[in-house]
């Protein structure tokens, strides 16, 4: 999931002809001031923190300025913020428009229908979750034949638009649909879409690109999700890795099994801290790297729960044994292993040779892992 910052989302919108306020990005107060003085940003203007979290307005992350000096001060104040845990590195300065009305527009995927869905609401400018269902219109859009004129007409009606703004909506919708399709987006959202005079302007932009389509979109390679540094390393190594607050490390293969393992650990009073999903691999080196990554997260104990399919038990055992020799004594942790499935016997034999016992029963091994974490923590 590649979440674009507002200004990056607006660059995408620009590419597809969606009307935007005039504006520019600044990374320092001085730069902000210069942008206004140079005329790149007309006055009065709005200065907005470029962070991924919502609720910027209430959080002091959006300010207004009527002079270049005010823009500088606003930018300085916002750039000093840490907004919902995210350091503000960029601000977007944009002309402040006299708007008549704020609308909501988005396209995302409806998994059940296996179709994109166009979501419209005349109640824009607030979080869409807070708008009553009766005030939200949803239309499925079939990729073949694509967004149609009758769907656009229905959207205009749901937004209460006629005349100039209805015509402008046609262009906005065409652009939004093309962006959703061509950029492999999970979500393209304009909230608010403002009625300004006879036209429409996208005041905000939320664009999320699908990770799996990265091979078609090298242009998004540099844009990172809100991952921790270890999560980032894991991503580079193509290991699914999630950090939580607990103290038990869980290494499993497959999302379902990983989640089930978590459920069982919780049941017995455990407190999982890191999930590491090996996925499907038959490379012992990848397993070794995963273990070393886990070691860096400093768990109190590690529960290894593998059901061998594509990832065979002997591959995991080999990788694990290799990793253990590389972890410094001070960083070692108690390990509870459970390996089942393809090449189970071979795997168990490899572990046994390294002095590790695999317990076949999930309940018992989970209990052992919880006990080990407690023992280590005591």
């Amino acid at each position, binding site marked *: 999931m590649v979440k674009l910052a507002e200004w990056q989302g607006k660059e995408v919108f620009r590419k597809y002809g969606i009307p935007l306020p005039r504006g520019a990005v600044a990374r320092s107060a001085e730069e902000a001031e210069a942008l206004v003085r140079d005329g790149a940003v007309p006055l009065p203007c709005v200065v907005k923190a470029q962070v991924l979290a919502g609720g910027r307005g209430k959080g002091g992350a959006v300010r207004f300025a009527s002079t270049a000096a005010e823009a500088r001060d606003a930018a300085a104040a916002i750039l000093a913020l840490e907004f919902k845990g995210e350091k503000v590195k960029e601000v977007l300065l944009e002309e402040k428009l006299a708007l008549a009305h704020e609308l909501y527009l988005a396209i995302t995927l409806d998994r059940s229908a296996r179709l994109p869905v166009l979501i419209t609401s005349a109640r824009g400018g607030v979080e869409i979750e807070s708008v009553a269902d009766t005030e939200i219109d949803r239309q499925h859009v079939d990729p073949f034949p694509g967004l149609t004129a009758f769907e656009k007409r229905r959207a205009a009606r749901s937004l209460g638009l006629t005349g100039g703004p209805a015509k402008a909506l046609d262009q906005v919708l065409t652009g939004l649909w093309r962006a959703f399709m061509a950029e492999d987006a999970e979500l393209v959202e304009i909230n608010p879409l403002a009625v300004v005079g006879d036209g429409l302007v996208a005041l905000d932009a939320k664009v999320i690109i699908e990770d799996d389509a990265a091979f078609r979109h090298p242009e998004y390679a540099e844009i990172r999700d809100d991952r921790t540094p270890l999560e980032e390393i894991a991503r580079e190594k193509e290991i699914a890795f999630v950090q939580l607050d607990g103290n038990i490390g869980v290494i499993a293969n497959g*999302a*379902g099994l990983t989640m089930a393992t978590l*459920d*069982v650990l919780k049941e017995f009073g455990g407190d999982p801290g890191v999930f590491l999903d090996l996925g499907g691999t038959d490379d012992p080196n990848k397993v070794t790297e995963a273990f070393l990554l886990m070691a860096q997260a400093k768990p109190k104990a590690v529960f290894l729960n593998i059901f061998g399919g594509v990832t065979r038990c002997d591959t995991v055992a080999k990788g694990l044994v290799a990793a253990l020799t590389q972890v410094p004594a001070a960083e070692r942790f108690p390990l509870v292993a459970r390996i089942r499935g393809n090449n189970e016997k071979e795997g168990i034999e490899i572990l046994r040779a390294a002095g590790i016992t695999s317990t076949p029963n*999930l309940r018992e091994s989970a209990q052992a892992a919880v006990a080990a974490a407690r023992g280590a923590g005591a």
Partner: protein
Amino acid sequence: MTTLLNRETRVVIQGITGHQGTVHARQMREFGTPVVAGVTPGKGGSTVEGVPVYDAVRDAVQATGANAACIFVPAPFAKDALLEAVDAGIPLAVVVTEHIPFHDMLVMYHYARAHGTRIIGPNCPGIASPGYAKVGIIPNVVFRPGRIGVVSRSGTLTYEIVNGIKEHGLGQSTCFGLGGDPVVGTSFVDALPLFEADPDTDLVVLVGEIGGTAEEEAAEYIQHHFTKPVVAYIAGRSAPPGKRMGHAGAIITRGRGTAESKLAALERAGARVARFPYEIPDLVAEIAARGARR
């Protein structure tokens, strides 16, 4: 489930010359599946594990009568591989490949549907009917012929559960691993009617996950249309909201798709809910025993 897998099933493996393709060609054969052809463009005329390789699916179908495809080709080429299978008239295609963009899958799904091909997957372990055939990658060791149906969005968790059923002395009629991607070819509500109509299945184990609303829709279907007993398990009950557990499908958003909502819906629909994977075999055995007494 002889509507999908039966004595006439003949499998073509797309991407057979890749490592996974080759490994699983062997394992499908060991399961007893007639693997009659492989396809890798440019490698036509060679053989893999004794299986003839063709340049195109149409050639493979003409030469061997293949009627089920198992797709292992890398994600960037998976859409094309599936469209080729559909175009060649193959009625069942298991897409094992992971990381296929959902935009590609939208095209794959609607094209396949319009032309009468059932997709299972993508990013899935596939389908197996012990005693008949397997198309996919579920380990052979977990199976034993029997009368329990299994349908699951998970991969290895499915193996774990199917294996648990086996170790409890029971066996499976058919096991579906649907995959947990945002867009799947076959969902719970697509698979359940097949089990309802399947004379070889007495009871169905449904394995869900947090995220999406497939389990809620399954519950709706079970409540109104499904007459066989259902044992359900939902993984991720204790997963924190908003964190990704590896599947794009496993995101909890806006209070929909939570474990609570799924479990409540399934209980309302009359399913027996297991809290942990290891409870499933006991519940299954209990219901099976009751059925036997009846």
